[in-house]
Every structure is written in C-alpha cells, then in structure tokens.
C-alpha cells in the first residue's frame, strides 16, 4: 500500500456568519491513492463542489488539513502547489476564453510554470493537442470554432500542460452529448494510464461513475456518508441514501432496471 497522494484530514467548511451559517462540508476525511480514480458523488448541496474547491485551493477549509504528498497545503497556495493540482470544469463553453486562441490558453500554463524553453513551447502545445486527439493546427483557432467535445479535449490538454499528478474533474462530461461523452471518458481513462494520473472525479452521474471510478465517496448534505470500492458500493450499498440514489438513475436496459429494483427493495427493508 503506497502513501496517499492527497489526504483530507477532518476538513470542514462553513460559509456565512451569525444566524446565516451554512455547513457546506463537515469533518470530511479520506485519502486518494496514486493512480486511482476516486469519485465524489452527490446531489446539489451535498458539499461535493465545496470539497473540490478546497482541494484546488480556491478557498481554504474552515478547519482541518489537506495534505499533498505528505505535506500540509497552506491556505495561500504557491505556484508549485498550483502546478501540482489541476482542474477540468463542467462547461467547456465557459472554461475557455472566447477571445483567446486555443494555443494561447494552453500556453498560459507553460509560461506561468516556465515549462520548457521559450522557443520549445509552441511545439509543446502541438504535442498536448495531439495527445488529446486534436490536430496541432487547432492552436490557431478560437474556441468558438470548436464543438463541445473538442473544447473539453482542449480543457483536458490544459490540465495536462502543468504536468500535475492530480486532476480534479468537475462533472467533466455532463454538458456533453452521450456519444461525445463516451469518447471523452475513454480519453480520460487512457491518459490516466499513460501519464499515471490520479483523478478526483466530481459528479452526480452514477452510471458514469460505475464505469470509470475505482472508489466512490457518497456525499449528502455536507457529510460523506459512504466510501467504498465501486463494485461493492453498487452490489451492496451500506447507506439507504446510496440505495435511493442508485435506484433513481434512469436506465436503458432491463438488466440495469433489475439491479435498481433489487436495491430499492433493500431500501424498503431498512425503513
């Protein structure tokens, strides 16, 4: 068992003051092992985005510590911390600046972290585009000329540009069409292997998670209520909420419908 690359130790986050306090995340502790894909699943208000934002250092936790490779992450992140954890956002329409070329958006990461010599960076951009399955000459294009799936590939390339080990994927395919989603998920899987990446996959989509995650953490109202291996969690969920969540997923085959009703039946037993 290797040491976790990322570890949350009793992390909490409250927003607001006085009477208007919202407990967005309460005493969250988990570790992410190098090379795994840990999914954080929950509905709106579950705290999954809060946790993602704290990992990314968008805001610090109210209490608790986040460790990266064994050392505590400060509330004011330095460049090296930024470089170590990257993000792929949900909406590829907004995550790329419409007024800057694809190449400029990719190059930013290289410039900020001084990756490669200045005259090599254009080649690095081409290599990144090719790595995510896009032609190198897309560097000159505007994001508005690309389809949703292509933009999401660019966003993935940007996360790779920093050469980080850990990538937070925040609903990376929920804005995409189902055929495009399949291609992008395939690409993510493949990059995780070739680059030995670690993923924290934030999503509400249990069907996707079933097929990509190694472990799943289920969140409800700011608490982590269950954490387990993907296959265990789907065959024998411990928490009734997990059962409810799985049995609400719209499915396309009878086989899935059977799994769902089996879990729903279990739900009635526990009530």
């Amino acid at each position, binding site marked *: 068992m290797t040491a976790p690359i990322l570890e949350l130790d009793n992390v909490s986050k409250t927003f607001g003051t006085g009477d208007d306090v919202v407990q967005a995340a309460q005493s969250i502790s988990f570790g992410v092992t190098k090379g795994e894909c840990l999914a954080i699943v929950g509905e709106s208000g579950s705290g999954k985005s809060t946790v993602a934002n704290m990992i990314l250092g*968008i805001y610090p936790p109210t209490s608790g510590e986040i460790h990266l490779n064994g050392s505590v992450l400060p509330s004011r992140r330095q460049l090296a911390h930024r470089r170590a954890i990257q993000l792929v956002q949900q909406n590829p329409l907004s995550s790329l*600046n419409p007024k800057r070329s694809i190449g400029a958006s990719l190059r930013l990461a290289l410039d900020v972290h001084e990756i490669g010599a200045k005259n090599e960076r254009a080649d690095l951009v081409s290599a990144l585009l090719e790595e995510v399955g896009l032609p190198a000459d897309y560097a000159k294009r505007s994001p508005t000329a690309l389809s949703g799936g292509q933009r999401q590939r660019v966003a993935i390339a940007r996360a790779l540009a920093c050469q980080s080990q850990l990538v937070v994927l925040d609903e990376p395919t929920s804005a995409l069409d189902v055929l495009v989603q399949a291609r992008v998920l395939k690409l993510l899987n493949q990059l995780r292997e070739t680059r030995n990446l670690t993923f924290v996959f934030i999503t509400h989509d249990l069907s996707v998670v079933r097929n990509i995650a190694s472990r799943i953490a289920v969140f409800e109202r700011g608490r982590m209520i269950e954490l387990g291996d993907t296959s265990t969690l789907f065959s024998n969920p411990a928490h009734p909420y997990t059962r409810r969540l799985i049995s609400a997923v719209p499915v396309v085959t009878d086989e899935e419908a059977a799994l769902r009703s089996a879990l729903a039946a279990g739900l009635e037993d526990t009530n």
Partner: protein
Amino acid sequence: MKRTLAILTANPLSLLGLVLVFVVVFSAVFADFIAPFPEHAGAVVDFANFNQPPQWPYIFGTDLVGRDLFTRVIYAYRISLILGIVVLAIAVPIGVSIGLVAGYLGGRTEYVLMRLTDVFLSVPPLVLAMSIMGVLKPTLANGMLAVTVMWWPWYTRLVYNITRGEKEEGYVLAAEVIGASRLHIIFREILPNCVPAIVTKMTLDMGFVILIASSLSFLGLGVQPPTPDLGSMVADGAKYLPDSWWLTIFPGLAILVAVFGFNLIGDALRDILGAEQ
C-alpha cells in the same frame, strides 16, 4: 472585422452612418485641400463680403467679419475630432483600468474605487465641465481636460459591470487554478472580453464628446476665437436669427451630421458585437 463591415454596409441606417462619419473625417483630414479659403480659419477680416447669404463662392454664406462659413465648418470638424480623440484616448484607458481592477479584485479596493466613480457620476457632466472651465482659463487644452474628467467614470461603470460577470466565467477560474498573475487575468483574459462594449461606447461617445464640447463653447467656455468651433459659431449666430439664418443653421447641421453619424454606427456595432450597455 470583415464580417462587421459587411453587416454595417448591408443595413441602410448604418450605411448612412458610415457615409456621414466618412464625410466628417474626410473633411477634417483634408481640410487644407477642400476648404475654398483656408486662411479664413484664422483671424481674417473681409468687410467687403461680410454677412452674405449662401452664394457662390460662399456656399454656406459668410460670417460677420466676411469669412467663408463652409471653410470654418470644415476646420471646426478638425478641432472637434481632435478633441474627441484626445478625450477618449485619455478617458478610456483610465476608466477601463479602474473598472477592471475594481470588478476583479472586489472587496475594499472595489468599494473605494467605485465610490470615487460615483462622486464623479453624481455631478451632471456639463456642470462639472463648466466649473472646471470656470476655474481654469478657457483654452482648448483645458476644454479637453474638463471633458476628460467627466468622461472616464462612464467607462469605469461599463467595464466594472462586465468584469463582475466575466469574473464568474470558467476561464477566469482556470487561469487562477493554473496560477496566473492578477495582472494577466485582468488585462489578458478579462479585458479582451470587454473590448466589443468599449468600442461600441467609444463610437457613440465620439458624437457626444463633440456635442458637449460644442455646448461648452456655445456657453463661451470652450475654444476661443479666432479658432473655428461649431458650438461658438452657433452661439454667435443665434443673436442674428432669423435674418442671418445661415450663421446658425449650417454649423448646427454640421453638429447634427457628426453626432448622428457616430450614433448610427455605434448603435449598429452594439447590435453586431452583442455588447452590453
């Protein structure tokens, strides 16, 4: 750019705007070649031909000291355009930078900068310019200064509002997560997204700056004689209405043409670039 131009020429109203603005800019730039009596732009007296109604070779008539009005209108355009360009060249960078910084940084910086802007916005523009001109000597340079001081806050407001929206866009978050500097995020990421709105407002404002400058000189606070200025020409001529109507009508129409032309283009740009106001 090509597409914008194609759309501008396809719409009759914006085409008219383009033609009007072209006429104004062309006369201002080539005044020395177009004006029949270039020397009449200065202090020339020709009592033999004073206060003549429109007739050849004085197609707009002559003023009270016998100068060709057409010549003076053309040179007044030159002054107006220079004034407009200088005012915007100073007011826009200042206003835009303050708006960007206040909108992106938020917090106390935003509070201080935006309240300062509000102070300027709360004084009616003409009153502010008049008081500045009242204190300082009424010269062209001071006129520009006065108009500039009252103009930048509008750009601050505009850009501040856009920035507050853009700040929430994913590309800003992406740049922050990468670790890009605030300077980069403000000027390289957010600013380009404000440009359409800024350009639109600048086009509209060229007309308004000319109008305000004319109003100031109409009140005797702007450009001083013998420099030709549309506002003072209207003001001087107004005393001799309705008998010497050409003294007022032609400079007045000239103001209308310039303001109307810039406004038509500005409106069309707003539609094409989808800029917010």
